[in-house]
């Protein structure tokens, strides 16, 4: 018996041996012009990376992460050195406070002028002197629902606790977003450090758990398009994309308010190729490139020049992609809550996940 397995394996081994020289010859003739990019999943147009490589001759080594929380320990441990990362606001604040980012030389990023000034203003909440970050995308967190599967119009987070939709609800598998939903539902701040408020939010999320189909991040999009769930908590950027693929879907910002976020390019302290990183960020700020990315990922771009280039009027003035935030109440940006806050939130999240 064993001999037979072994024989079959020999064949695999031999074929691998035969291919090995070919592989080696390919891998070692590398020059050092490269940039290591660590970005969210499905957060860039692959063609943009290709055209960047072609134009600059810099090879992009591209990796993806699912949440800010997954990204952070990798950078913190120092085991890996990425040159450009794209964290959200509160995570940028945490990285600045822990001395993990280096100042960006804006002289090397002339295209930063295309970014709307108001976004740099907002960025001051987490990057007080606008020294460390260049905005890439922004948006809100809201509810995406399928009009054919939901009878009433939705305007509140409370629908996520409606027994009717048992097994049809997709929650975000990320600490801050999940807790934000419950905190906002109760009218609290999504940066709450109050034990009673957090306890209430935790109890609500535990009560909600039996109704939840799954806690997911990037999968919300495909599952909603595929009619696999009726209601999902999602980032506004996915709304246009999903509506294009499935016209039955509708995005709302709940009346209790929600989180407004900005994801920005930053350069970590241990980056090996700072210059290439700045070339990369500058390239991303070009109007036509930002437009290409916008059309592919459909996340709101802070690049005003790119917005002007959008041809379809309804998208250019879309209430989803470019909402007038003054019309909404209860909008908040996440703040970094310190070591204590991190621990509090992650413990609560673990308790929710392990609940029955």
């Amino acid at each position: 018996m064993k001999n037979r397995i072994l024989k079959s394996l020999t064949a695999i081994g031999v074929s691998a041996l035969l291919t090995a020289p070919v592989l080696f010859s390919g891998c070692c003739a590398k020059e050092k012009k490269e940039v290591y990019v660590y970005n969210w999943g499905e957060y860039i147009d692959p063609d943009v990376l290709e055209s960047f490589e072609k134009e600059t001759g810099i090879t992009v080594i591209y990796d993806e992460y699912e949440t800010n929380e997954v990204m952070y320990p990798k950078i913190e441990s120092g085991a890996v050195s990425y040159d450009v990362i794209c964290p959200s606001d509160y995570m940028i604040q945490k990285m600045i406070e822990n001395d993990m980012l280096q100042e960006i030389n804006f002289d090397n990023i002339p295209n930063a002028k295309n970014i709307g000034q108001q976004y740099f203003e907002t960025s001051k909440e987490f990057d007080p002197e606008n020294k460390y970050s260049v905005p890439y995308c922004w948006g809100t967190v809201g509810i995406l629902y399928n009009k054919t599967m939901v009878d009433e119009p939705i305007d509140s987070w409370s629908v996520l606790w409606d027994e009717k939709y048992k097994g049809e609800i997709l929650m975000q598998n990320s600490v801050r977003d999940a807790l934000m939903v419950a905190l906002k539902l109760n009218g609290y701040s999504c940066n709450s450090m109050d034990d009673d408020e957090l306890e209430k939010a935790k109890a609500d999320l535990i009560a909600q758990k039996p109704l939840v189909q799954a806690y997911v991040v990037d999968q919300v999009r495909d599952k909603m398009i595929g009619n696999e769930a009726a209601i999902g908590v999602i980032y506004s950027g996915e709304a246009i994309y999903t509506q294009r693929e499935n016209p039955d879907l509708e995005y709302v910002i709940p009346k209790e308010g929600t989180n407004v976020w900005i994801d920005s390019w930053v350069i970590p302290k241990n980056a090996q190729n700072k210059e290439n990183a700045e070339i990369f960020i500058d390239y991303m700020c070009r109007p036509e490139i930002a437009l290409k990315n916008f059309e592919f990922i459909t996340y709101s771009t802070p690049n005003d020049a790119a917005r002007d280039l959008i041809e379809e009027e309804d998208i250019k003035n879309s209430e989803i992609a470019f909402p007038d935030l003054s019309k909404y109440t209860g909008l908040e940006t996440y703040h970094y809550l310190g070591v204590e806050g991190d621990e509090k939130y992650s413990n609560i999240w673990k308790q929710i996940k392990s609940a029955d």
Partner: protein
Amino acid sequence: MKNNKAVKLLSAPYIVWAAAFIIIPLLMVFYYGLTNRDGQFTFANVLAIQQTEHFKSLYLALILALISTVICILLAYPLAMILSSLKGKNEHLVVFIFILPMWMNFLLRTMAWQTLLENDGVINTVLQFLHMPKMHIINTPSAIVFGMVYNFLPFMVLPLYNVLNKIDINVINAARDLGANPFQTFIRITLPLSVPGIISGITMVFVPSLTTFVVSEMLGGSKILLIGNVIEQEFTQNSNWNLGSGLSIVLMLFIIISMIMSAIFDKNGEGNTL
């Protein structure tokens, strides 16, 4: 034996390697598990297993691993008996067919079950076609048990097949000649002789089931936290290496217990298949 010493020196590379990549890393797990963030000695990270959320995840992992192991034995034993009774030219082919799935990538095997069990998955589509009610299996503990059984069943079949194949047919025949019926023969002869295989199979199914985080992540929709998931997340999301290491120490205790049990039953290492 003048060159005995020289030959012994050949073990030097491995001794260095084992020290660097097996012993020291394990000691580091113990170091982190038994200190706090400031490097002071503490049992807190190990005792953290008493916290409800950790205890629950360990308890659930134990239960699911146990269920999976029992199901694997129940499925594999008859199969191994049938396979070992096959004689003739097709024997190898049939046995190979039953362990072939083992050579598929572990993640692809688990992904296959996701595709099958999903609410809109293949099984439910078929059920719907037959006008039967949908099953909600995905993202429940049952889905995880499915995944564990499917992934680890071959690890149970192989050692059982090996020991059963080694049983001398004359022993069985002698029992029959002495008047034992098939059931008695099984209970008195076959079963005791196959204990090493059962034990080896149990460890090979139980340990990976107990410690997995992949199966529970892929088939549990992140709704179900097993101890493996907790440890993985402490390292990859909460950057709390101390707590992650502390819980790993607890996990190792359970592995050591199951090893000791298997050592007691399987003194001769007969069940070793690999």
